[in-house]
Protein backbone atom coordinates (compact mmCIF):
# COMPACT_ATOMS: atom_id res chain seq x y z
CA UNK A 1 0.00 0.00 0.00
CA UNK A 2 1.13 3.51 -0.70
CA UNK A 3 0.64 6.06 2.07
CA UNK A 4 2.89 8.77 0.64
CA UNK A 5 1.18 12.15 0.60
CA UNK A 6 0.79 13.91 -2.71
CA UNK A 7 -0.45 17.46 -2.59
CA UNK A 8 -1.10 19.18 -5.87
CA UNK A 9 -1.91 22.81 -6.63
CA UNK A 10 -5.56 23.21 -5.76
CA UNK A 11 -5.52 20.85 -2.78
CA UNK A 12 -2.67 22.95 -1.36
CA UNK A 13 -4.66 26.12 -1.89
CA UNK A 14 -7.66 24.63 -0.08
CA UNK A 15 -5.47 23.57 2.85
CA UNK A 16 -3.88 27.03 3.00
CA UNK A 17 -7.24 28.76 2.82
CA UNK A 18 -8.85 26.71 5.59
CA UNK A 19 -5.77 26.94 7.83
CA UNK A 20 -5.55 30.71 7.38
CA UNK A 21 -9.23 31.06 8.22
CA UNK A 22 -8.83 28.86 11.30
CA UNK A 23 -5.88 30.94 12.52
CA UNK A 24 -7.76 34.18 11.99
CA UNK A 25 -10.84 32.97 13.90
CA UNK A 26 -8.92 31.39 16.78
CA UNK A 27 -6.77 34.45 17.39
CA UNK A 28 -9.68 36.85 17.01
CA UNK A 29 -11.10 35.62 20.32
CA UNK A 30 -7.95 36.03 22.38
CA UNK A 31 -8.17 38.85 24.96
CA UNK A 32 -5.51 41.58 24.77
CA UNK A 33 -4.11 40.42 28.11
CA UNK A 34 -2.84 37.28 26.37
CA UNK A 35 -1.34 38.93 23.30
CA UNK A 36 2.29 38.51 24.29
CA UNK A 37 1.99 34.83 25.33
CA UNK A 38 -0.01 34.31 22.16
CA UNK A 39 2.63 35.83 19.91
CA UNK A 40 5.15 33.62 21.66
CA UNK A 41 2.82 30.62 21.43
CA UNK A 42 2.28 31.03 17.70
CA UNK A 43 6.03 31.51 17.41
CA UNK A 44 6.37 28.09 19.06
CA UNK A 45 3.85 26.51 16.67
CA UNK A 46 5.86 27.40 13.57
CA UNK A 47 8.76 25.59 15.27
CA UNK A 48 7.23 22.54 13.53
CA UNK A 49 9.65 23.60 10.80
CA UNK A 50 12.12 21.35 12.63
CA UNK A 51 10.27 18.36 11.13
CA UNK A 52 10.92 19.78 7.67
CA UNK A 53 14.54 20.22 8.67
CA UNK A 54 14.73 16.54 9.64
CA UNK A 55 13.27 15.61 6.25
CA UNK A 56 15.88 17.73 4.47
CA UNK A 57 18.76 16.41 6.59
CA UNK A 58 17.82 12.72 6.28
CA UNK A 59 17.52 13.10 2.50
CA UNK A 60 20.90 14.84 2.22
CA UNK A 61 23.38 13.13 -0.09
CA UNK A 62 26.22 15.64 -0.32
CA UNK A 63 28.35 17.33 2.33
CA UNK A 64 26.79 20.69 1.45
CA UNK A 65 23.25 19.35 1.87
CA UNK A 66 24.22 17.72 5.16
CA UNK A 67 25.63 21.01 6.44
CA UNK A 68 22.55 23.01 5.44
CA UNK A 69 20.21 20.28 6.73
CA UNK A 70 22.04 20.25 10.07
CA UNK A 71 21.66 24.03 10.20
CA UNK A 72 17.91 23.71 9.47
CA UNK A 73 17.34 21.18 12.30
CA UNK A 74 19.53 23.21 14.69
CA UNK A 75 17.56 26.42 14.10
CA UNK A 76 14.18 24.67 13.97
CA UNK A 77 14.84 22.87 17.26
CA UNK A 78 15.85 26.22 18.77
CA UNK A 79 12.61 27.79 17.57
CA UNK A 80 10.49 24.97 19.01
CA UNK A 81 12.26 24.46 22.35
CA UNK A 82 12.82 28.17 23.06
CA UNK A 83 9.28 29.07 22.04
CA UNK A 84 7.85 26.44 24.37
CA UNK A 85 10.03 27.42 27.34
CA UNK A 86 9.21 31.11 27.07
CA UNK A 87 5.47 30.64 26.48
CA UNK A 88 5.11 28.13 29.29
CA UNK A 89 6.86 30.47 31.72
CA UNK A 90 4.64 33.39 30.78
CA UNK A 91 1.38 31.49 31.01
CA UNK A 92 2.22 29.91 34.36
CA UNK A 93 2.17 33.41 35.87
CA UNK A 94 -1.46 34.16 35.20
CA UNK A 95 -3.70 33.71 38.21
CA UNK A 96 -6.83 35.42 39.55
CA UNK A 97 -7.14 36.73 43.08
CA UNK A 98 -9.81 34.02 43.37
CA UNK A 99 -7.15 31.44 42.56
CA UNK A 100 -4.83 32.96 45.09
CA UNK A 101 -7.25 32.53 47.97
CA UNK A 102 -8.20 29.11 46.69
CA UNK A 103 -4.54 28.17 46.66
CA UNK A 104 -4.11 29.57 50.15
CA UNK A 105 -6.98 27.45 51.45
CA UNK A 106 -5.62 24.45 49.65
CA UNK A 107 -2.20 24.95 51.20
CA UNK A 108 -3.81 25.35 54.58
CA UNK A 109 -5.78 22.14 54.21
CA UNK A 110 -2.63 20.32 53.23
CA UNK A 111 -0.68 21.55 56.23
CA UNK A 112 -3.48 20.70 58.63
CA UNK A 113 -3.95 17.19 57.32
CA UNK A 114 -0.83 15.62 58.87
CA UNK A 115 -1.91 16.92 62.27
CA UNK A 116 -5.31 15.26 61.93
CA UNK A 117 -3.64 11.96 61.02
Amino acid sequence: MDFSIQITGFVALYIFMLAAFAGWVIIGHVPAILHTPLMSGSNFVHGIVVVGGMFALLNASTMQEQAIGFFAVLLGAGNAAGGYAVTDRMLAMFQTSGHETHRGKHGHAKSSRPKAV
Partner: protein
Amino acid sequence: MTMTSIAQLTIGVTDLAAALLFLYGLKRMSSPVTAPSGIFVAGLGMLVAVLASFLYVFDVSAAAKPHLMVNVGLGVLALVVGGGFAWWGGKKVAMTAMPQMVALYNGMGGGAAGAIAATELFGNKTQGTTQLVVTMLGALIGAISLSGSLIAWAKLEGVIKRPLRIRGQQYFNILVLLGTLTVAGYLVYVTRGVSSQLLPIPQLIYLFFGCALIYGILMTLPIGGADMPVVISIYNAATGLAVGLEGFVIGNPALMIAGMVVGAAGTLLTLLMAQAMNRSVANVLFTNFGGAQKHKAGHIKGSLKPTAAADAGIFMRYAKSVIIIPGYGLAAAQGQQKLYEFVKLLRAADVSVKFAIHPVAGRMPGQMDVLLAEAGVPYDLIFQLDDINEEFKTTDVALVIGANDVVNPAARTKSSPIFGMPILNADQAKQVYVVKRGQGKGYADIVNPLFYADNCNMVYGDAAAVLTMMIEAVRGLGAKAAA
Protein backbone atom coordinates in the same frame (compact mmCIF):
# COMPACT_ATOMS: atom_id res chain seq x y z
CA MET B 1 3.09 -4.00 4.03
CA THR B 2 6.63 -2.83 3.53
CA MET B 3 8.60 -0.89 6.12
CA THR B 4 8.30 2.16 3.89
CA SER B 5 4.52 2.17 3.89
CA ILE B 6 4.37 1.56 7.65
CA ALA B 7 6.66 4.55 8.14
CA GLN B 8 4.58 6.68 5.78
CA LEU B 9 1.38 5.67 7.55
CA THR B 10 2.82 6.44 11.00
CA ILE B 11 4.19 9.83 9.90
CA GLY B 12 0.86 10.64 8.26
CA VAL B 13 -1.13 9.82 11.39
CA THR B 14 1.19 11.59 13.87
CA ASP B 15 1.41 14.70 11.70
CA LEU B 16 -2.37 14.79 11.45
CA ALA B 17 -2.56 14.50 15.24
CA ALA B 18 0.08 17.23 15.61
CA ALA B 19 -1.90 19.63 13.40
CA LEU B 20 -5.04 18.96 15.45
CA LEU B 21 -3.17 19.45 18.75
CA PHE B 22 -1.71 22.77 17.51
CA LEU B 23 -5.15 24.10 16.62
CA TYR B 24 -6.69 22.86 19.85
CA GLY B 25 -3.75 24.23 21.86
CA LEU B 26 -4.02 27.68 20.30
CA LYS B 27 -7.76 27.61 20.94
CA ARG B 28 -7.16 26.87 24.63
CA MET B 29 -4.76 29.82 24.79
CA SER B 30 -7.73 32.14 24.23
CA SER B 31 -8.51 32.25 27.95
CA PRO B 32 -6.07 32.79 30.83
CA VAL B 33 -7.65 29.87 32.71
CA THR B 34 -7.03 27.26 30.01
CA ALA B 35 -3.93 28.87 28.46
CA PRO B 36 -1.22 26.93 30.37
CA SER B 37 -2.80 23.65 29.29
CA GLY B 38 -3.02 25.08 25.75
CA ILE B 39 0.74 25.36 25.39
CA PHE B 40 1.08 21.87 26.90
CA VAL B 41 -1.30 20.42 24.31
CA ALA B 42 0.60 22.14 21.49
CA GLY B 43 3.89 20.94 22.97
CA LEU B 44 2.63 17.37 22.95
CA GLY B 45 1.86 17.74 19.24
CA MET B 46 5.37 18.99 18.62
CA LEU B 47 6.92 16.10 20.54
CA VAL B 48 5.14 13.34 18.63
CA ALA B 49 5.79 15.06 15.30
CA VAL B 50 9.54 15.35 16.01
CA LEU B 51 9.79 11.73 17.19
CA ALA B 52 7.88 10.53 14.12
CA SER B 53 10.18 12.52 11.83
CA PHE B 54 12.90 9.91 12.50
CA LEU B 55 10.72 7.44 10.54
CA TYR B 56 11.74 9.32 7.40
CA VAL B 57 14.81 7.04 7.46
CA PHE B 58 12.65 4.33 5.89
CA ASP B 59 11.56 6.63 3.12
CA VAL B 60 14.65 8.48 1.89
CA SER B 61 15.81 8.94 -1.68
CA ALA B 62 18.24 6.37 -3.08
CA ALA B 63 21.05 8.91 -3.20
CA ALA B 64 20.79 9.56 0.54
CA LYS B 65 20.78 5.87 1.62
CA PRO B 66 24.58 5.50 2.04
CA HIS B 67 24.69 8.60 4.28
CA LEU B 68 21.78 7.59 6.49
CA MET B 69 23.70 6.73 9.67
CA VAL B 70 25.67 9.99 9.55
CA ASN B 71 22.51 11.97 8.83
CA VAL B 72 20.61 10.43 11.76
CA GLY B 73 23.56 11.20 14.04
CA LEU B 74 23.68 14.79 12.81
CA GLY B 75 19.92 15.07 13.35
CA VAL B 76 20.12 13.94 16.97
CA LEU B 77 23.07 16.26 17.59
CA ALA B 78 21.28 19.25 16.05
CA LEU B 79 18.10 18.56 18.04
CA VAL B 80 19.99 18.26 21.32
CA VAL B 81 22.29 21.24 20.80
CA GLY B 82 19.74 23.61 19.20
CA GLY B 83 16.89 22.59 21.46
CA GLY B 84 19.04 22.48 24.58
CA PHE B 85 20.55 25.93 24.19
CA ALA B 86 17.22 27.55 23.29
CA TRP B 87 15.46 25.79 26.20
CA TRP B 88 18.11 26.99 28.63
CA GLY B 89 17.95 30.54 27.22
CA GLY B 90 14.16 30.58 27.38
CA LYS B 91 14.10 29.45 31.01
CA LYS B 92 16.76 31.96 32.06
CA VAL B 93 15.75 35.16 30.26
CA ALA B 94 14.24 38.00 32.29
CA MET B 95 10.59 38.78 31.57
CA THR B 96 11.51 42.32 30.46
CA ALA B 97 13.79 40.86 27.78
CA MET B 98 11.01 38.64 26.43
CA PRO B 99 10.29 40.55 23.18
CA GLN B 100 13.85 40.23 21.88
CA MET B 101 13.87 36.55 22.85
CA VAL B 102 10.73 35.97 20.79
CA ALA B 103 12.40 37.86 17.93
CA LEU B 104 15.46 35.60 18.19
CA TYR B 105 13.47 32.34 18.20
CA ASN B 106 11.36 33.64 15.36
CA GLY B 107 14.46 34.42 13.31
CA MET B 108 15.66 30.87 13.89
CA GLY B 109 12.38 29.51 12.48
CA GLY B 110 12.75 31.73 9.42
CA GLY B 111 16.34 30.56 8.99
CA ALA B 112 15.26 26.92 9.22
CA ALA B 113 12.64 27.45 6.50
CA GLY B 114 15.27 29.15 4.34
CA ALA B 115 17.72 26.28 4.92
CA ILE B 116 15.13 23.67 3.90
CA ALA B 117 14.59 25.62 0.70
CA ALA B 118 18.36 25.77 0.18
CA THR B 119 18.73 21.96 0.30
CA GLU B 120 15.91 21.69 -2.26
CA LEU B 121 17.56 24.25 -4.53
CA PHE B 122 21.16 23.01 -4.29
CA GLY B 123 20.03 19.40 -4.73
CA ASN B 124 17.74 20.45 -7.59
CA LYS B 125 14.99 18.34 -5.99
CA THR B 126 11.95 20.40 -6.90
CA GLN B 127 9.57 19.03 -9.50
CA GLY B 128 7.89 21.42 -11.84
CA THR B 129 7.87 25.19 -11.99
CA THR B 130 5.16 25.62 -9.34
CA GLN B 131 7.22 23.78 -6.71
CA LEU B 132 10.33 25.72 -7.66
CA VAL B 133 8.60 29.09 -7.43
CA VAL B 134 6.97 28.19 -4.09
CA THR B 135 10.35 26.99 -2.76
CA MET B 136 11.98 30.28 -3.69
CA LEU B 137 9.13 32.34 -2.29
CA GLY B 138 9.44 30.51 1.03
CA ALA B 139 13.22 30.96 0.90
CA LEU B 140 12.87 34.69 0.26
CA ILE B 141 10.39 35.24 3.12
CA GLY B 142 12.34 32.97 5.50
CA ALA B 143 15.66 34.71 4.81
CA ILE B 144 14.18 38.20 5.23
CA SER B 145 12.55 37.04 8.47
CA LEU B 146 15.89 35.67 9.72
CA SER B 147 18.03 38.76 9.14
CA GLY B 148 15.19 41.17 10.00
CA SER B 149 14.47 39.41 13.30
CA LEU B 150 18.16 39.49 14.20
CA ILE B 151 18.22 43.28 13.65
CA ALA B 152 15.03 43.62 15.75
CA TRP B 153 16.74 41.57 18.48
CA ALA B 154 19.85 43.77 18.30
CA LYS B 155 17.78 46.92 18.59
CA LEU B 156 15.75 45.77 21.59
CA GLU B 157 18.83 44.30 23.27
CA GLY B 158 20.56 47.67 22.85
CA VAL B 159 23.32 46.36 20.57
CA ILE B 160 22.14 48.81 17.91
CA LYS B 161 21.32 52.05 19.67
CA ARG B 162 19.81 54.31 17.02
CA PRO B 163 17.74 53.81 13.91
CA LEU B 164 20.06 54.04 10.92
CA ARG B 165 18.70 56.33 8.25
CA ILE B 166 20.19 57.64 5.07
CA ARG B 167 18.71 59.85 2.39
CA GLY B 168 16.80 57.96 -0.26
CA GLN B 169 16.92 54.78 1.80
CA GLN B 170 13.44 53.69 0.76
CA TYR B 171 14.39 53.85 -2.92
CA PHE B 172 17.60 51.95 -2.23
CA ASN B 173 15.63 49.26 -0.37
CA ILE B 174 13.17 48.91 -3.24
CA LEU B 175 16.14 48.57 -5.58
CA VAL B 176 17.62 45.76 -3.46
CA LEU B 177 14.24 43.98 -3.35
CA LEU B 178 13.85 44.28 -7.13
CA GLY B 179 17.40 42.97 -7.53
CA THR B 180 16.58 39.97 -5.32
CA LEU B 181 13.45 39.23 -7.32
CA THR B 182 15.38 39.53 -10.58
CA VAL B 183 17.96 37.00 -9.38
CA ALA B 184 15.10 34.73 -8.28
CA GLY B 185 13.38 35.03 -11.65
CA TYR B 186 16.60 34.32 -13.52
CA LEU B 187 17.25 31.33 -11.26
CA VAL B 188 13.83 29.85 -12.07
CA TYR B 189 14.51 30.46 -15.76
CA VAL B 190 17.90 28.69 -15.83
CA THR B 191 16.89 25.83 -13.51
CA ARG B 192 14.11 24.99 -15.96
CA GLY B 193 16.58 23.79 -18.56
CA VAL B 194 18.15 26.85 -20.12
CA SER B 195 21.90 26.95 -19.45
CA SER B 196 23.09 29.97 -17.52
CA GLN B 197 25.01 32.63 -19.40
CA LEU B 198 26.03 34.69 -16.38
CA LEU B 199 26.86 32.56 -13.34
CA PRO B 200 26.82 28.85 -12.47
CA ILE B 201 23.60 27.90 -10.68
CA PRO B 202 25.08 27.35 -7.17
CA GLN B 203 26.58 30.85 -7.25
CA LEU B 204 23.21 32.24 -8.30
CA ILE B 205 21.60 30.52 -5.30
CA TYR B 206 24.17 32.10 -2.98
CA LEU B 207 23.55 35.48 -4.59
CA PHE B 208 19.78 35.04 -4.14
CA PHE B 209 20.08 34.23 -0.42
CA GLY B 210 22.64 37.00 0.09
CA CYS B 211 20.35 39.61 -1.48
CA ALA B 212 17.33 38.41 0.55
CA LEU B 213 19.29 38.56 3.83
CA ILE B 214 20.58 42.04 3.03
CA TYR B 215 17.08 43.21 2.22
CA GLY B 216 15.85 42.01 5.63
CA ILE B 217 18.61 44.01 7.32
CA LEU B 218 18.03 47.17 5.27
CA MET B 219 14.28 47.00 5.79
CA THR B 220 14.54 46.78 9.60
CA LEU B 221 17.42 49.19 10.26
CA PRO B 222 15.52 52.48 9.81
CA ILE B 223 12.59 51.47 12.04
CA GLY B 224 12.61 53.00 15.53
CA GLY B 225 12.68 50.98 18.74
CA ALA B 226 9.11 51.91 19.66
CA ASP B 227 7.80 50.20 16.55
CA MET B 228 9.71 46.95 17.09
CA PRO B 229 6.68 45.03 18.51
CA VAL B 230 4.82 45.52 15.24
CA VAL B 231 7.92 44.52 13.30
CA ILE B 232 8.44 41.33 15.35
CA SER B 233 4.79 40.46 14.85
CA ILE B 234 5.17 40.93 11.08
CA TYR B 235 8.22 38.67 11.01
CA ASN B 236 6.36 36.12 13.15
CA ALA B 237 3.61 35.98 10.53
CA ALA B 238 6.23 35.91 7.76
CA THR B 239 8.04 32.93 9.28
CA GLY B 240 4.72 31.11 9.56
CA LEU B 241 4.08 31.75 5.89
CA ALA B 242 7.58 30.57 4.90
CA VAL B 243 7.13 27.38 6.97
CA GLY B 244 3.76 26.75 5.32
CA LEU B 245 5.23 27.17 1.82
CA GLU B 246 8.17 24.84 2.52
CA GLY B 247 5.64 22.36 3.97
CA PHE B 248 3.99 22.30 0.56
CA VAL B 249 7.33 21.70 -1.15
CA ILE B 250 8.28 18.68 1.00
CA GLY B 251 4.69 17.38 0.99
CA ASN B 252 3.97 17.73 4.71
CA PRO B 253 0.45 19.03 5.48
CA ALA B 254 1.26 19.52 9.20
CA LEU B 255 3.81 22.18 8.26
CA MET B 256 1.37 23.72 5.79
CA ILE B 257 -1.40 23.97 8.39
CA ALA B 258 0.74 25.11 11.33
CA GLY B 259 2.58 27.62 9.16
CA MET B 260 -0.52 29.09 7.61
CA VAL B 261 -2.40 29.28 10.93
CA VAL B 262 0.49 31.30 12.36
CA GLY B 263 0.69 33.36 9.18
CA ALA B 264 -2.96 34.38 9.50
CA ALA B 265 -2.89 34.78 13.29
CA GLY B 266 0.29 36.85 13.12
CA THR B 267 -1.21 39.08 10.45
CA LEU B 268 -4.31 39.71 12.55
CA LEU B 269 -2.17 40.41 15.61
CA THR B 270 -0.03 42.85 13.61
CA LEU B 271 -3.13 44.73 12.44
CA LEU B 272 -4.50 44.89 16.00
CA MET B 273 -1.21 46.30 17.25
CA ALA B 274 -0.92 48.88 14.51
CA GLN B 275 -4.54 49.86 15.12
CA ALA B 276 -3.83 50.38 18.82
CA MET B 277 -1.00 52.74 17.87
CA ASN B 278 -3.26 54.45 15.34
CA ARG B 279 -0.83 53.74 12.51
CA SER B 280 -1.08 51.65 9.41
CA VAL B 281 1.37 48.79 8.98
CA ALA B 282 2.77 50.51 5.87
CA ASN B 283 3.30 53.62 7.96
CA VAL B 284 5.35 51.64 10.50
CA LEU B 285 7.48 50.00 7.83
CA PHE B 286 8.09 52.86 5.47
CA THR B 287 7.91 56.08 7.47
CA ASN B 288 10.73 57.17 9.67
CA PHE B 289 8.75 57.98 12.78
CA GLY B 290 10.18 59.33 16.01
CA GLY B 291 13.13 60.78 14.16
CA ALA B 292 14.49 64.28 14.13
CA GLN B 293 11.23 66.05 13.29
CA LYS B 294 10.94 69.28 15.24
CA HIS B 295 7.66 69.82 17.01
CA LYS B 296 6.63 73.29 17.98
CA ALA B 297 6.60 73.48 21.73
CA GLY B 298 3.08 74.88 21.56
CA HIS B 299 1.51 77.01 24.19
CA ILE B 300 1.14 75.01 27.36
CA LYS B 301 -0.69 76.44 30.31
CA GLY B 302 0.33 75.72 33.86
CA SER B 303 3.60 74.49 35.33
CA LEU B 304 5.24 71.30 36.50
CA LYS B 305 4.44 70.78 40.19
CA PRO B 306 6.81 68.34 41.87
CA THR B 307 5.69 66.67 45.08
CA ALA B 308 7.26 64.25 47.58
CA ALA B 309 6.72 60.52 47.15
CA ALA B 310 5.64 60.14 50.79
CA ASP B 311 2.91 62.79 50.42
CA ALA B 312 1.55 61.15 47.29
CA GLY B 313 1.57 57.73 48.99
CA ILE B 314 -0.38 58.99 51.99
CA PHE B 315 -2.87 60.83 49.77
CA MET B 316 -3.61 57.55 47.98
CA ARG B 317 -3.97 55.69 51.28
CA TYR B 318 -6.92 57.96 52.14
CA ALA B 319 -8.45 57.96 48.64
CA LYS B 320 -11.46 55.80 47.81
CA SER B 321 -10.33 54.68 44.41
CA VAL B 322 -7.00 54.55 42.59
CA ILE B 323 -6.26 53.56 39.01
CA ILE B 324 -2.65 52.72 38.21
CA ILE B 325 -1.25 53.19 34.72
CA PRO B 326 2.03 51.33 34.40
CA GLY B 327 4.42 51.87 31.50
CA TYR B 328 7.73 50.52 30.36
CA GLY B 329 9.56 52.84 32.79
CA LEU B 330 8.18 50.72 35.64
CA ALA B 331 9.60 47.55 34.12
CA ALA B 332 12.91 49.25 33.32
CA ALA B 333 13.24 50.15 37.00
CA GLN B 334 12.19 46.59 38.00
CA GLY B 335 9.49 48.18 40.16
CA GLN B 336 6.62 45.71 39.59
CA GLN B 337 7.14 43.82 42.87
CA LYS B 338 7.27 47.07 44.84
CA LEU B 339 4.18 48.31 43.06
CA TYR B 340 2.19 45.24 43.99
CA GLU B 341 3.42 45.53 47.57
CA PHE B 342 2.10 49.11 47.63
CA VAL B 343 -1.19 47.99 46.05
CA LYS B 344 -1.63 45.33 48.72
CA LEU B 345 -1.22 48.01 51.41
CA LEU B 346 -3.84 50.19 49.72
CA ARG B 347 -6.23 47.28 49.34
CA ALA B 348 -5.77 46.36 52.99
CA ALA B 349 -6.90 49.93 53.76
CA ASP B 350 -10.06 49.42 51.66
CA VAL B 351 -8.92 51.51 48.72
CA SER B 352 -10.29 50.23 45.42
CA VAL B 353 -7.27 49.67 43.16
CA LYS B 354 -7.32 48.87 39.46
CA PHE B 355 -4.65 48.64 36.80
CA ALA B 356 -5.30 50.25 33.43
CA ILE B 357 -3.26 48.83 30.58
CA HIS B 358 -2.82 50.61 27.28
CA PRO B 359 -2.68 48.27 24.28
CA VAL B 360 0.91 49.26 23.53
CA ALA B 361 2.19 49.56 27.11
CA GLY B 362 5.59 47.92 27.33
CA ARG B 363 7.55 46.81 24.32
CA MET B 364 4.99 44.31 23.03
CA PRO B 365 1.18 44.24 23.26
CA GLY B 366 0.23 42.50 26.46
CA GLN B 367 3.78 42.57 27.82
CA MET B 368 2.72 44.77 30.73
CA ASP B 369 0.09 42.18 31.67
CA VAL B 370 2.79 39.53 31.77
CA LEU B 371 5.13 41.70 33.84
CA LEU B 372 2.37 42.43 36.37
CA ALA B 373 1.39 38.75 36.45
CA GLU B 374 5.03 37.89 37.14
CA ALA B 375 4.94 40.20 40.18
CA GLY B 376 1.86 38.31 41.41
CA VAL B 377 -0.85 40.83 40.50
CA PRO B 378 -4.11 38.89 40.00
CA TYR B 379 -5.44 39.46 36.50
CA ASP B 380 -8.93 40.42 37.62
CA LEU B 381 -7.42 43.73 38.85
CA ILE B 382 -6.05 44.38 35.36
CA PHE B 383 -8.27 46.24 32.89
CA GLN B 384 -7.79 47.09 29.24
CA LEU B 385 -8.31 50.55 27.79
CA ASP B 386 -11.88 50.18 26.54
CA ASP B 387 -13.10 48.60 29.77
CA ILE B 388 -11.79 51.23 32.16
CA ASN B 389 -11.57 54.52 30.30
CA GLU B 390 -15.00 55.71 31.46
CA GLU B 391 -14.08 55.14 35.09
CA PHE B 392 -11.40 57.84 35.34
CA LYS B 393 -14.09 60.53 35.69
CA THR B 394 -15.27 59.03 38.96
CA THR B 395 -11.85 58.05 40.29
CA ASP B 396 -9.96 59.89 43.03
CA VAL B 397 -6.39 59.24 41.94
CA ALA B 398 -4.70 58.20 38.69
CA LEU B 399 -1.15 57.03 39.32
CA VAL B 400 0.97 57.08 36.17
CA ILE B 401 4.22 55.15 36.55
CA GLY B 402 6.81 55.19 33.80
CA ALA B 403 4.23 55.89 31.11
CA ASN B 404 3.98 59.03 29.02
CA ASP B 405 2.58 58.99 25.48
CA VAL B 406 -0.30 56.68 26.39
CA VAL B 407 -1.80 59.35 28.69
CA ASN B 408 -0.97 62.37 26.51
CA PRO B 409 -4.15 64.44 26.03
CA ALA B 410 -2.46 66.02 22.99
CA ALA B 411 -3.75 62.97 21.11
CA ARG B 412 -7.17 64.67 21.22
CA THR B 413 -5.93 67.77 19.34
CA LYS B 414 -5.91 67.68 15.59
CA SER B 415 -2.56 69.41 15.13
CA SER B 416 -0.67 66.87 17.22
CA PRO B 417 1.41 64.22 15.48
CA ILE B 418 -0.15 61.56 17.68
CA PHE B 419 -3.70 62.79 16.99
CA GLY B 420 -6.18 59.93 17.05
CA MET B 421 -4.09 57.53 19.09
CA PRO B 422 -6.35 56.07 21.78
CA ILE B 423 -5.20 57.25 25.20
CA LEU B 424 -6.10 56.47 28.79
CA ASN B 425 -8.11 59.38 30.20
CA ALA B 426 -5.89 59.81 33.25
CA ASP B 427 -6.38 63.60 33.10
CA GLN B 428 -10.06 63.16 34.04
CA ALA B 429 -9.26 61.78 37.48
CA LYS B 430 -9.60 64.17 40.43
CA GLN B 431 -5.89 63.94 41.19
CA VAL B 432 -3.06 62.67 38.98
CA TYR B 433 0.39 61.61 40.16
CA VAL B 434 3.06 61.00 37.57
CA VAL B 435 6.13 59.05 38.62
CA LYS B 436 8.94 59.84 36.20
CA ARG B 437 12.71 59.68 36.20
CA GLY B 438 13.18 63.20 34.86
CA GLN B 439 11.63 65.86 32.68
CA GLY B 440 12.38 64.06 29.43
CA LYS B 441 9.80 63.32 26.78
CA GLY B 442 8.36 59.94 25.83
CA TYR B 443 9.18 57.78 22.82
CA ALA B 444 7.10 59.94 20.54
CA ASP B 445 9.10 62.99 21.64
CA ILE B 446 6.04 65.14 22.24
CA VAL B 447 5.40 67.45 25.19
CA ASN B 448 2.70 66.09 27.48
CA PRO B 449 0.23 68.81 28.60
CA LEU B 450 -1.10 66.46 31.30
CA PHE B 451 2.04 67.06 33.35
CA TYR B 452 1.25 70.80 33.43
CA ALA B 453 -2.44 70.40 34.35
CA ASP B 454 -3.80 71.82 37.61
CA ASN B 455 -4.79 68.40 38.97
CA CYS B 456 -1.41 66.83 38.27
CA ASN B 457 1.67 66.51 40.46
CA MET B 458 5.02 65.09 39.45
CA VAL B 459 6.97 62.64 41.59
CA TYR B 460 10.51 62.54 40.23
CA GLY B 461 12.71 59.54 40.76
CA ASP B 462 13.35 55.93 39.86
CA ALA B 463 10.02 54.05 39.96
CA ALA B 464 11.25 51.38 42.39
CA ALA B 465 12.79 53.95 44.75
CA VAL B 466 9.67 56.14 44.70
CA LEU B 467 7.44 53.15 45.46
CA THR B 468 9.68 52.13 48.36
CA MET B 469 9.21 55.62 49.83
CA MET B 470 5.45 55.42 49.33
CA ILE B 471 5.33 52.02 51.04
CA GLU B 472 7.35 53.30 54.00
CA ALA B 473 5.12 56.37 54.32
CA VAL B 474 1.92 54.30 54.36
CA ARG B 475 3.43 51.71 56.74
CA GLY B 476 4.47 54.58 59.02
CA LEU B 477 0.82 55.64 59.23
CA GLY B 478 -0.26 52.12 60.07
CA ALA B 479 2.19 51.90 62.97
CA LYS B 480 0.99 55.20 64.38
CA ALA B 481 -2.62 54.15 64.05
CA ALA B 482 -1.91 50.90 65.89
CA ALA B 483 -0.14 52.72 68.71
